[in-house]
């Protein structure tokens, strides 16, 4: 299988879906002429033209809302947020309009829109640009939330998201854009709501998603080599719908849980997972559920300190040893 970057995998997904369905339109700030702020859409304007690859002004509430309205008429917009952090200025359009319009119309309307872009810290861009809103988004029934960790997953999940008839929030990661992974040349889809066990193990289950999967896998390697402990890493891939069964099956095998996430701790995705595990697998647990999150402050600018604010392999290792103790 060819090795391609996460960025290329997303571009391939967008391109294949544009070629498959004339209703698919890619829109966002700098996606066309500039070739994408993070080069995800590089070359697509030249290939597909300005009707399919559309530059928008810096106007998130306006253009995201416009995409929602167009999707009600059957256009399938894939809207890029340069950073998911900018969702706050389009909050009403995403979480009042896209999330609610089906319900408020008694099921008469659906919004086949995808909103995608990076949602992560770790690039020293400060508190305004480092939000990870997957918990906030998933708190709104009506939307689906996807956070892929690898090139393979990103491509397969994005293609599914574009074909989905519900609004899908697709959260990428600027640090992962350059990560390479094996991606088959033949077409494939990954269903939403299906977790992936990225590493098998018997002593501890790490439940994680997004870039934290990579940190967890590194920590798991060290735990095996240096501590002789066998760690299973479950990548959720999708937050809503959520494959809790795969998590519970892993807990039944290892009896110990560490949740690793690039979220602030209060009411995070991990909070929900921990609730569900204690509720549905209480008797399987040999100890309390542990959780490693981003340190609970706004994202710091200072580069060396930001590394320590976010999950990283050392922090995961330390938290895993505590969970195994």
């Amino acid at each position: 299988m060819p090795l391609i970057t996460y960025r290329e995998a997303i571009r391939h997904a967008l391109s294949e879906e544009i070629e498959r369905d004339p209703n698919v339109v890619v829109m966002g700030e700098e996606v066309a002429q500039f070739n994408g702020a993070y080069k995800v859409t590089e070359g697509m304007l030249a290939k597909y033209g300005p009707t399919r690859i559309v530059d928008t002004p810096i106007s998130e509430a306006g253009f995201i809302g416009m995409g929602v309205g167009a999707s009600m008429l059957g256009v399938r917009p894939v809207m890029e947020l340069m950073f998911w952090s900018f969702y706050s200025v389009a909050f009403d359009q995403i979480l009042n309009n896209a999330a609610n319009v089906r319900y408020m119309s008694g099921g008469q309307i659906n919004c086949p829109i995808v909103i995608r872009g990076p949602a992560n810290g770790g690039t020293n861009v400060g508190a305004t640009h480092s939000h990870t809103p997957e918990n906030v988004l998933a708190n709104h029934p009506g939307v689906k939330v996807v956070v892929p960790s690898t090139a393979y997953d990103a491509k397969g999940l994005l293609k599914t998201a574009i074909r989905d008839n519900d609004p899908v929030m697709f959260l990428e990661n600027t640090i992962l854009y350059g990560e390479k992974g094996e991606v088959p040349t033949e077409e494939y889809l990954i269903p939403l709501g299906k977790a992936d066990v990225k590493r098998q193990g018997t002593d501890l289950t790490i439940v994680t998603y997004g870039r934290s999967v990579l940190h967890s896998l590194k920590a798991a390697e060290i735990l095996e080599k240096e501590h002789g402990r066998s760690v299973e890493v479950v990548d959720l891939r999708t937050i809503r719908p959520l494959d809790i069964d795969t998590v519970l099956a892993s807990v039944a095998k290892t009896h110990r849980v560490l949740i690793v996430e690039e979220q602030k701790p209060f009411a995070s995705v991990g909070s929900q997972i921990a609730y569900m595990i204690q509720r549905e697998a209480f008797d399987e647990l040999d100890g309390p559920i542990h959780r490693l999150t981003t340190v609970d402050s706004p994202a710091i600018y200072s580069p060396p300190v930001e590394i320590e604010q976010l999950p990283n392999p050392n922090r995961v290792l330390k938290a895993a040893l505590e969970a195994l103790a």
Partner: protein
Amino acid sequence: MSNKTSASPTKQAAAPAAGTAQSHLAPINANLTPEAKIGLYRTMVRIRRFEERSLRAYQAKKIGGFLHLYIGQEAVAVGCCSLMGKHDHVITAYRDHGHAIAVGMDMKPLMAEVYGKVTGCSKGKGGSMHYFDPKRNFWGGHGIVGGQIPLGVGLAYGVKYKGHKGSAMAFMGDGAVNQGAVHESYNLAALWNLPVVFVIENNGYSMGTSQERSSAGFGLAERGRAYGMAWGVCNGHDLYDVRATMDKFLTLAREESKPSIVEIDTYRYRGHSVADPDKTYRTRDEIEDYQKNKDPITLFQKALLAEGILTEASVGEIDTEARAEAEQATEFAEASPFPTADDLQKDVYWEVDNPDQKTSQGRIFFDR
């Protein structure tokens, strides 16, 4: 408009030639058949009787939440929606009953919706502020001031993308014009030549705040100049003027794919919502002046009587029928069942409602 609180100098300055005496001669009106004119009149009367009946139901505590009545503004929705063709779309804010009836929705599901019944147009899930009928190109019914306007631009984008000759009318009140999302919408529509008409129903008050206390600058529609957009004003008490003016801007949208802003002067007789005591920001005299001298139904009735299209007898008949229809809608709503707790999680996700086409796995609701 001089009666609106301390007068509206800025508004008067920006509203030249609103409500010309010649509007009835515009071809869009002159070419109407007598039956069509009676139909327009009837729709206005039906809206008013529906609103009056829903107010009584609210006072009888049959309706929860908010109720924003359209009484006094009927000529706006009826005039605009009467111009709709196959590819013309409508979206509006929470004062949406008039538009719903004007696009042809039946009173029964509308009344049942405010009663919170499962036979309502949104199965009791939307309420008064959230009426929808996409089969009639009516896309709501939205609760957040100005929040529907980007969606309206999206409808226009959809019309253009699909190559249809059509338009979107994005309605808002005068209180919406200072929302950021509205200005972003103006910019996108003008930048991309989208076939949308932004319709400002200026009833003088954003809730209890008059225009001069909320909006800077010249007229509300005139702000279109800053975006290089066509704009106009018209007299919302005169159905013919609404149609003549809107026809011009809808044609601009359909034929040239150009957006515009139209400010329609109108007035609501009731409070912002029925919970509004309506005593702090305007006088009783002001309201009565509008009711006596500028009522859109009375004015159109007079015009049609003068044209020999209506008679005193047919006026009475139309009114009796409208009252009866509103009463029957109320009986229907009363007799209908409420949704059940089992309905709470239907109509949330398309995929959950269409299990035969489901591709997702995993848990999507989290009550356990």
